[in-house]
């Protein structure tokens, strides 16, 4: 019995010693984890880039943690709570880099960028993209890809209606909202004559803060976009209030007055078939460039155009930047930075751009992007250059990334505007309640932060 016991002790010691030794065996290699969303187009490219990086960096091993989109934030936050955050993450889901920065989650990259400035060439990035990753003056992430806003249209439907394609010049004074609505009316059709519309002229997918911009207002004070938590909506200013009110009225008119946009119920049907533009049921879509991601159906011709003026001399659309952030508490910050640099490099961004539908955040790669999309768009390369230069000029970073607690505020105003889109309430009534409800949420969040 005693012999058995001593044997047992011996075995336990042996096994545990192996475990004790093993970290030192691997100590040569620093492991860097990167949290990514389960995107079927992006993940294979990421894997390829990681494999390539690991091969050329024998002392670093990058490992990707892939989670479904809706689990991205819970995973990021819970890994953080467990004390084992991913070394690299980004605004892949609902929380923005400002949400991360206010919680002191991301490392400030200024010193790294300064040190490696030749290699990184910050000037090659779109200025709006870098601004869109800057928190109170500090750069918190390095962009690896972008999305931009434009008008995407089904050129075949334009041809069928005998219409000219919309302009690509962003400062074309004749390209106005009213003109767009007129075109939309001509594109809206009941093709089979059953009394129901089966082809809609226009789908405007812009969020409330974007249409407030378009109509010359703003839902937030300027400092809010720089990383300072909102104290209230800026809609107590008459100009902002009136702009959003007008924007809401115009959007509701698309549905119920002009009847050129699908109602929420119809939109749900269209979305079940596929992305609205690709279904051929919508003539024009104002959205991020995801409207032309993936293979475009060959039975239609496609085009892109500038976003029209809603009010004279005002033009601001949304830019969506994806900046890679490094966990402030990462044990391998230097190694993580190596990989961030690599993913944000022209080399990696070019591969990502070629193998997915993403546009690079580097200006030097714009011509490659134009080359790529010109293969399936009716626009000339010159026109595409015009659209893109405008999209990156008249833009501001997505409020989802730059406004603290944005997702919660958005969910409030999304619910509050439901009755408007369902044709049950008037814009003013909806807007007044919305302001009160969103402000209430903001106040509560501030109260929580002060504790």
């Amino acid at each position, binding site marked *: 019995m005693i012999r058995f016991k001593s044997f047992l002790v011996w075995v336990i010691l042996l096994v545990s010693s192996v475990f004790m030794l093993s970290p030192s065996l691997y100590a040569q290699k620093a492991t860097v984890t990167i949290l990514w969303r389960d995107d079927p187009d992006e993940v294979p490219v990421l894997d390829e880039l990681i494999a390539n990086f690991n091969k050329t960096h024998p002392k670093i091993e990058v490992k990707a943690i892939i989670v479904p989109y809706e689990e991205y934030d819970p995973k990021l936050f819970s890994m953080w*709570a467990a004390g084992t955050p991913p070394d690299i993450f980004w605004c892949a889901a609902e929380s923005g880099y400002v949400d991360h920065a206010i*919680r002191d989650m991301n490392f400030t990259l200024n010193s790294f960028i300064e040190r490696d400035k030749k290699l990184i060439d910050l000037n090659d990035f779109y200025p709006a993209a870098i601004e869109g990753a800057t928190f109170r003056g500090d750069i918190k992430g390095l962009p690896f890809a972008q999305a931009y806003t434009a008008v995407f249209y089904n050129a075949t439907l334009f041809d069928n209606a005998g219409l000219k394609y919309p302009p690509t010049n962003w400062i074309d004074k004749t390209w106005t909202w009213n003109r767009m609505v007129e075109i939309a009316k001509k594109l809206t059709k009941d093709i089979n004559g059953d009394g129901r519309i089966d082809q809609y002229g226009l789908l405007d997918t812009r969020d409330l803060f974007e249409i407030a911009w378009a109509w010359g207002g703003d839902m937030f004070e300027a400092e809010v976009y720089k990383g300072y938590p909102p104290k209230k909506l800026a809609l107590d200013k008459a100009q902002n209030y009136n702009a959003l009110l007008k924007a809401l009225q115009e959007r509701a008119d698309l549905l119920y007055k002009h009847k050129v946009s699908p109602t929420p119920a119809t939109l749900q049907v269209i979305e*079940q078939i596929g992305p609205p533009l690709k279904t051929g049921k919508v003539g024009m879509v104002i959205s991020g460039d995801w409207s032309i991601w993936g293979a475009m159906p060959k039975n239609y011709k496609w085009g892109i155009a500038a976003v029209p003026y809603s009010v004279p001399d005002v033009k601001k659309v949304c830019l969506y930047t994806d900046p890679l952030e490094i966990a402030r508490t990462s044990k391998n910050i230097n190694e993580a930075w190596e990989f961030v640099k690599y993913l944000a490099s022209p080399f990696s961004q070019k591969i990502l751009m070629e193998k997915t539908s993403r546009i690079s955040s580097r200006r030097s790669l714009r011509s490659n992007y134009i080359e790529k999309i010109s293969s399936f768009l009716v626009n000339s390369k010159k026109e595409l250059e015009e659209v893109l230069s405008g999209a990156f000029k008249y833009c501001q970073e997505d409020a989802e990334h730059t406004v603290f607690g944005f997702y919660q505020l958005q969910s409030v105003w999304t619910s509050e505007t439901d009755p408007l889109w369902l044709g049950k309430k008037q814009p003013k009534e909806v807007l007044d309640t919305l302001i009160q409800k969103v402000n209430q949420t903001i106040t509560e969040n501030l109260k929580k932060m002060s504790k």
Partner: protein
Amino acid sequence: MKTSMSSIAKREERYFYIFISPWIIGFLIFIAGPIIASLYFSFCNYDVVTPPVWIGFQNYKKLFFDPLFWQALKVTSYYSLLSVPLGIILSLVIAILLNQKIRGLVWFRTIYYIPSVISGVAVSLLWMWIFNPEFGILNFLLWKLFRIHGPAWLMSEEWVIPALIIMSFWGIGGDIVIYLAGLQGIPTELYEAAEIDGANSWKKFLNITIPMMSPILLFTLVMGIIGSFQVFTQAYVMTRGGPHYASLFYVLYIYQNAFQFFNMGYASALSWILFIIILLLTLLIFKSSPLWVYYESTRER
């Protein structure tokens, strides 16, 4: 002799703990731990990333002034109040039909049970098509058969909950199987005796079937209420709580607070209130059960 017996008993006791330890450890770490933690968090301000800050009863106080808490409670109660009794009645009726001696019964039983084995998300996507106001089969049938213009279902504040209640009947197969087992356990001599006494079918159903089935009805009622207060998948996949909070189920509201807004403290407080509500309802049903549940073994009392 006595001491050796007790040493055997001791050894058995030790083995008992060794063998049950995986479960006990699992329970303590994965169930009891989080439950206690959530109680603690419910008294804290906690966004998961930064350490929790003790704020006393503030989350609970806030809850009473939160219109969305009341909305979530209203939506869930409305759903529960209709879906549970209707579900029980419907599944009992179908179980009785399936208990008849007709041909092809096995097939019918299988058909009614099949929906219960399909996952919630798949079912939700399927029903989104059925309920579609313009192209859905439900409104198509309403128009073809009755010349009624169907409502917008999931897109309508008034109809979204009735729609989800209709959808809940899709999963009654589980209850049907339980009822069938219960029905087959009722001694046939009871019915024969009643027939001799001149009872008609309705009287037999009311005075034999229902009392004999009452323990099973109690079970399905309790499970049904607990289940209906925990509705999540349908609302999450199909409506996201909309339109205009009309389908903001309680658990969906907890989920939003916990994993989308990262108000983990508030979400914990909401969870504890839900626990108390379900506990009280269950206790109420159990307390009332002597009035309406019949147990053969205790009939002398």
